[in-house]
């Protein structure tokens, strides 16, 4: 009996597992071919799409979006419909539920897949700028947006803004008793009855960094120590803060305008206050759009940026449930939110505030016992 021949033959004979393996391998390959990396150079694509833009066909662009998908997806679909450019998007989850897109962009830095990054708050954009992920681009549509919302070096441009607000439960708190300043939250009246989102993440991390930049370390530390002593509840995200207030688990909280508006549209018993009108003002957080350095389709990316910075997009974001405040003068604002001119935005250098994030995160871990 020749052993070696048998050994060579039997694998052919046993037909059970091989097809499975083969099918699995084939499906992998098919999946790989499904969505091939564009190999044509961008210049060709760009020329083709600019030539075709009027005929409404051609080209593609990839955007990573951290603005809530329910708000951003319709805008991108509209752009597709208008231009015929195929927009491939990656959306982010709420910051506290998973590690988001900024990490993907950082990890992909050596071989970028995205053309544009659309952020819903300043911190991540500025982190990416610092890490060399972004490229400068001065969009013609940035004109008319106040200078404070634009990067002097053109690595980002702000548009449609949200604001931090105090949210309160209207069944439990009368409007006249609602806190008018974030510093009121340290009042014993709100002991155990106030919630904020984890200040290490998302727009709350921007808010606390802005407070440190504005107040200085000593006063800011003091404020957070008092908050802690007042048994402030730390929720994993701004939407959770809103839900806790709406359910009446706590009476007041700090969150974002769009979060409150979603509850208002859902007829929940909440209302919002733009705090510190007579004091330091309230941090305003623009969306920020940036071009990615070494993007696969830079020209298509620039055109998409132009669109996002148009008054038209600001208008639809204002009219959507996102209730974002337009930054172009003359664009009609959202119905539940006062116009930019009527409340007091904190005077902010976004770069300076963002620089504080790391240090402030470490401080608050200790002060708030996170």
């Amino acid at each position, binding site marked *: 009996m020749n052993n*070696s021949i048998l050994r060579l033959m039997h694998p052919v004979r046993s037909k059970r597992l091989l097809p499975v393996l083969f099918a699995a391998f084939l499906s992998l390959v098919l999946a790989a071919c499904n969505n091939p990396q564009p190999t044509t150079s961008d210049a060709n694509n760009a020329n083709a799409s600019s030539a075709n833009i009027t005929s409404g066909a051609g080209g593609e662009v990839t955007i990573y979006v951290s603005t809530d998908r329910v*708000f951003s997806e319709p805008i991108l679909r509209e752009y597709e419909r208008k231009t015929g450019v195929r927009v491939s998007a990656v959306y982010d989850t709420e910051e506290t539920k998973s590690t988001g897109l900024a990490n*993907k962009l950082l990890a992909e830095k050596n071989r970028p897949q995205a053309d544009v990054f659309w952020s819903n708050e300043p911190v991540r954009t500025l982190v990416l700028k610092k890490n060399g992920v972004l490229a400068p681009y001065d969009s013609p549509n940035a004109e008319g947006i106040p200078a404070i919302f634009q990067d002097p070096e053109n690595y980002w441009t702000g548009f449609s803004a949200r604001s931090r607000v105090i949210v309160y439960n209207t069944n439990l708190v009368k409007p006249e008793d609602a806190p008018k300043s974030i510093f009121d939250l340290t009042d014993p009246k709100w002991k155990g009855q106030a919630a904020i989102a984890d200040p290490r993440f998302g727009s709350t991390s921007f808010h606390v960094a802005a407070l440190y930049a504005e107040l200085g370390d000593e006063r800011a530390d003091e404020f957070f120590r008092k908050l802690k002593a007042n048994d402030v509840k730390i929720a994993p995200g701004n939407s959770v803060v809103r839900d806790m207030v709406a359910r009446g688990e706590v009476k007041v909280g700090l969150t974002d305008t769009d979060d409150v508006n979603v509850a208002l549209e859902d007829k929940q018993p909440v209302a919002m206050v733009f705090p510190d009108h007579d004091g330091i003002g309230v941090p305003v957080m623009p969306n920020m759009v940036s071009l990615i350095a070494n993007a696969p389709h830079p020209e298509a990316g620039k055109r998409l940026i132009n669109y996002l910075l148009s008054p038209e997009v600001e208008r639809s974001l204002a009219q959507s449930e996102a209730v974002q405040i337009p930054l172009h003068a003359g664009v009609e604002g959202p119905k539940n939110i006062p116009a930019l001119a009527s409340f007091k935005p904190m005077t902010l250098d976004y770069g300076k505030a963002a620089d504080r994030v790391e240090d402030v995160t470490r401080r608050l*871990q200790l002060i708030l016992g996170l």
Partner: protein
Amino acid sequence: MVASNRTVKGNALQLGSALPSSRTIILVVAGASFVLVCVVPILYMLGVSFISADGLFTFENYRLLLLDARQRELLGRSTLLGVGTALLATAIGAPLGLLLARADLPLKRMLRILLVIPLVVPPYVLALSWILVTGSTGFLASLIGGSFLSAWTYSLTGAILVLGTCLYPLSMLATEAAARRVNGRLEEAALLVASPRRVLWRITLPLIAPTVAAAALIIFVLALAEFGVPGLLRVRVFTTEVFTAFSALYDFGAGVALAVPLLAVALIVGIIAKLITGERLLAARRNLHPGLILRLGRWRAVVLGLLAIILTVTVILPLVTLAVEAGKPERITSALRSSGDAIHNSLSLAAIGATLIVVLAAFLGYARARSGARLRGLVDLLFITIFAVPSTVVGVGLIGLWNRSGLLGAIYTSQAIIVVAYLARFVPIAALMLAASVRQIPVSVEEAAEVGGASWWRTFTRIVLPQMRAGLISAWVVSFIFCFGELGATLLVAPPGESTLPVRVYTIIANTPSSEVAALALLQASVVLVPLVILGLFLRGNATKASGA
């Protein structure tokens, strides 16, 4: 095997053995795939953690690790959360698995499907449903008029209860598969001289203990890795530190360094579990003997009552709460209508992923079972440690390795990378689950087959795999559920365009009211249940055969 290195000219037999055997080739390929997909991304990230911004070697990320009391306290709490969850889930799941395998219970198939439900609902959403029930303004509080449970809800105990009730199905499935494999003849022989209770404690339980322990270890690691549920219940855990390093500080090196204590905890708990359960193992031939049947007799009412309580508390109450919260059925139908592509992607990617995982894990489990005892122990610990690596670390590592030009890049920019991520995350646990199945198959059957002239491949596919059947099916089901629900790594590697259902759900729920979150969670749970029910029906005949009924 050693013969292949000899350069002996001689007869045909020796020439034959100079070629590597199909066994060697296949096991080496399986081992290499495992290293490439599961180990290299982690090594890559470890490398990142030792390199400074200037590209030089640095120990900076590890310098301050665990030096402050705060971090040590967090790590202690994480460990408590893991151990508590593993114990609770095993206390619920293992008896259930034993009952499903051995007791004379009615409607077992339906029970099994119902009891798997907590595993397919995202834990975060289950925690949310518990807040809606037991929170200070929850359903119970409004029913009773007081909020005596709310302090409990927002506590470590609450987190353990939520995670324990999410994860017990894992222990149940593993225990059932193991109990089915125990050789009925042993038990029958013992029953001649001993009471059923004694047989259960002295024969059956010791034989299934390693599998129960392996499942408990997997549950421990899953609870350790969880930060969504503790975050919602305001329990500070160490895992959030890793997450903070990535998501707040954008410092990959620090993130990896912070994951190391978690790996160490998993390793230590793994070693302790090994020491406790030991290697009580008896080879079993294909199980044709029913063995010990647990006749419930007068305990029947008690067991059924307990089952009813478990079903009510862990399945019906959360589902009803979510359904009430979701409100109108239009919410679910509208969620369903727009999620077609995501559902299709999720089901096909999870099916491909689970199949590849089980194929690879079957070979790895075989290699591990047939290696020396000491090596076996080390491999188990390697599997559990790899599984403990946070999904973010795996995701970033995969991007670093696969986002290149050529074939790797072609895979990275396609949905195939999601399957790669599934493999990277879940091959180790499937291998851990399958290793026990192989070990119970006596080497003697393979030797007999070889003497009879069968090749190893033929022996493996015709003798070894059929005997692993129950284990393969439960490993596939668990892998499918895990792949389907994977979020952490998928979110990082998924290419632009519509991705998987959990990614869709999580990108949508950011700002939506909890009613829509509930609707989407119910949708996600039902989508993953449908194929499992179909599979259950399809396997009906075999399952009854295997249980010896």
